[in-house]
């Protein structure tokens, strides 16, 4: 069988054939989904079935391939907080901008370049600093930044955003001594399971239309393992499917979630079997543990979530932490500042006026509900953080919503 596969087609082509351009399977899955969704709706007499696609890339797949048009209108697909650029607190953008203006070279990924600070002022983003003549350089990976800074020998800072997926690349580069002491790391690493927990909690607390199923992120789970999501069915009774990023992957995940709702047997299932294992990537997990430790972390528009961030530890903190090196106070929960008298900056609501990104990333509001959407805030001139990255829900809707009717008829009674 394996030989067959290899002789037939290039593997990449094969994946594309089976999971992207597979019309017969897509139409069969559509029928299955309609059948189950209608059965559930009939049984429970509910207006809508809300399914959260945690990852920004799932939102991209859903919108780009127009999957919402294939699915029943009462199946409400909402985006989750799975976009690392969207959740970077404005404060860290301020810090990066300040350092860049002081003449320090800033390395950043392309999508965080345009991330705006909530503070009014000029320049508000790294891009604007670059236009002003600041030393900001876009890199493809941390490795490239490490190489470049070694050659330059100049004091520089890497704007380190990302989830668990990105963490091993930082960890590996740091542990193998590929990073010179000139390169500091501005740490904005975040973890996905705590934010998922927060999202479910906020839906419960505000009494919103409950989330009925979760499409868990595929590449994050490749690193942390699908078993990490077991709390969703166990504590919250939510069917969870770890899915890939091709349209057929998402359809299969939705079908499985509906099947589990119908059978009333929530569990974690892996759809993305070609990459995800239950235990994840042990090698990468060990690397993360070597370099990072869990910490209280702030999320843009949401505030602090316990144990939801990664922080450099030990010698790596001493040598490479940008905030420590430049003696900039870190964001600290208010209570800690008051009780322990540490120096620190409290988190404040950090979205521009009228921006609803804080609600968009937890699936309470749709991008089109935002008064700024495609008015003040557009992909050309992103105002809120969700409009910046190619994985931000607003940016995806702005670019591709013409391909499908994003305005789902079954609008949950959300605020």
């Amino acid at each position, binding site marked *: 069988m394996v030989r067959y596969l290899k002789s037939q087609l290039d*593997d990449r082509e094969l994946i594309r054939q089976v999971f992207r351009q597979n019309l017969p399977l897509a139409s069969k899955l559509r029928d299955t989904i309609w059948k189950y969704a209608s059965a559930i709706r009939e049984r429970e007499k509910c207006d809508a079935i809300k399914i959260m696609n945690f990852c920004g890339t799932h939102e991209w797949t859903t919108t780009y391939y127009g999957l919402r048009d294939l699915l029943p209108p009462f199946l409400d697909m909402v985006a989750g907080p799975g976009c690392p650029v969207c959740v970077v607190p404005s404060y860290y953008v301020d810090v990066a901008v300040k350092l860049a203006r002081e003449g320090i070279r800033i390395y950043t990924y392309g999508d965080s370049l345009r991330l705006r600070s909530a503070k009014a002022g000029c320049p508000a983003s790294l891009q604007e600093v670059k236009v002003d003549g600041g030393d900001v350089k876009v890199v493809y990976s941390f490795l490239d930044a490490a190489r470049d800074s070694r050659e330059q020998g100049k004091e520089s800072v890497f704007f380190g955003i990302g989830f668990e997926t990105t963490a091993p690349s930082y960890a590996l580069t740091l542990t193998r001594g590929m990073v010179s002491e000139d390169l500091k790391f501005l740490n904005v690493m975040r973890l996905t399971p705590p934010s998922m927990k927060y999202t479910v909690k906020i839906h419960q607390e505000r009494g919103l239309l409950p989330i009925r199923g979760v499409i868990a992120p595929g*590449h994050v789970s*490749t690193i942390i393992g699908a078993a990490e999501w077991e709390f969703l069915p166990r504590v919250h009774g939510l069917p969870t499917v770890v899915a890939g990023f091709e349209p057929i992957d998402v359809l299969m995940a939705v079908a499985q979630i509906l099947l589990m709702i119908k059978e009333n047997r929530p569990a974690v299932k892996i759809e993305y079997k070609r990459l995800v294992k239950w235990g994840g990537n042990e090698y990468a997990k060990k690397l993360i543990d070597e370099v990072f430790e869990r910490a209280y972390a702030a999320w843009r528009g949401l505030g602090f979530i316990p144990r939801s961030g990664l922080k450099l530890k030990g010698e790596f903190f001493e040598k490479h932490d940008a905030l420590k090196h430049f003696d900039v106070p870190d964001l600290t929960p208010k209570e800690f500042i008051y009780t322990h008298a540490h120096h620190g900056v409290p988190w404040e609501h950090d979205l521009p006026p009228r921006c609803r990104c804080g609600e968009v990333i937890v699936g309470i509001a749709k991008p089109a509900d935002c008064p700024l959407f495609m008015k003040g805030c557009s992909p050309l001139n992103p105002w809120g953080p969700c409009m910046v990255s190619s994985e931000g829900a607003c940016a995806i809707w702005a670019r591709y919503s013409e391909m499908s009717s994003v305005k789902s008829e079954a609008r949950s009674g959300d605020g």
Partner: protein
Amino acid sequence: MCWGVPAKILSLDGPTALVDFGGVKKEVVVAASGISSGDLVMIHAGMIIGKLSPEDFMENVALYRDIRTQELLDAGLDEKAAKEKATDETDKLLNSLGVRGSIASIEPEVAEPMAVAEKEIFIPSNAFKRSYKVSLSDTDYLQVMHYTNYFRFCERAQQELLEGLGFSYAALIHKFGLFVPTVETSGRILGPVRLDNMIEVAVWVEEVGRKHIKFRNVIKNLTSGKVVAECSTVSVCTDTTLMESMPLPAELAEKLKRYMVETD
């Protein structure tokens, strides 16, 4: 941040590798074990996060068979026929796309039943019930009720229970010359009660001895609808002047029977 691109490995060099994205060549770091040259891997932000193998690929495809099997079962087919038909359909689908393998050998995924919810905590129908509102002074720094206050509310409910029977604390002391101090407690806190929540304390009598009463309490958070604590306390009838235990007045023992329920 799940944007990933598949690529082929051209060569490996310690912690880094040269990969081919289908024309574009790029150096990336290897954050996965068991990678060799020629493998198809997934790249995310300049890093290999995992390997794509043909076996795993087939397993992935087999998932459709599982969904289809379930659907056929619902349609009334028996298990074996449903599985065969679903396998057949999936194979046909694959063949039409140029794959000549079969998924027949791959075992369907067994859904593991999730852990059964915890046993519900029993509250007898004849229990004495009182509702209270949690005020600021009951809570701690996190605005969650401090654990000692669970006992305070239980005690308050017990006091009201006795008062309802005509044995207020004042009456016990001044009329009978006795008091019922609590000498033993045990409890479990199961969930938080926050500021301004309404709680309902249920009290019943589990045991009336010659000299003691065993109360049982369950606290329910009416706001969240969950049982948040259970505890039991033992009070001993004590003579106020001698400070020694004494038999319960027969009258009281008789009246307590109204709230008597024996549980576990």
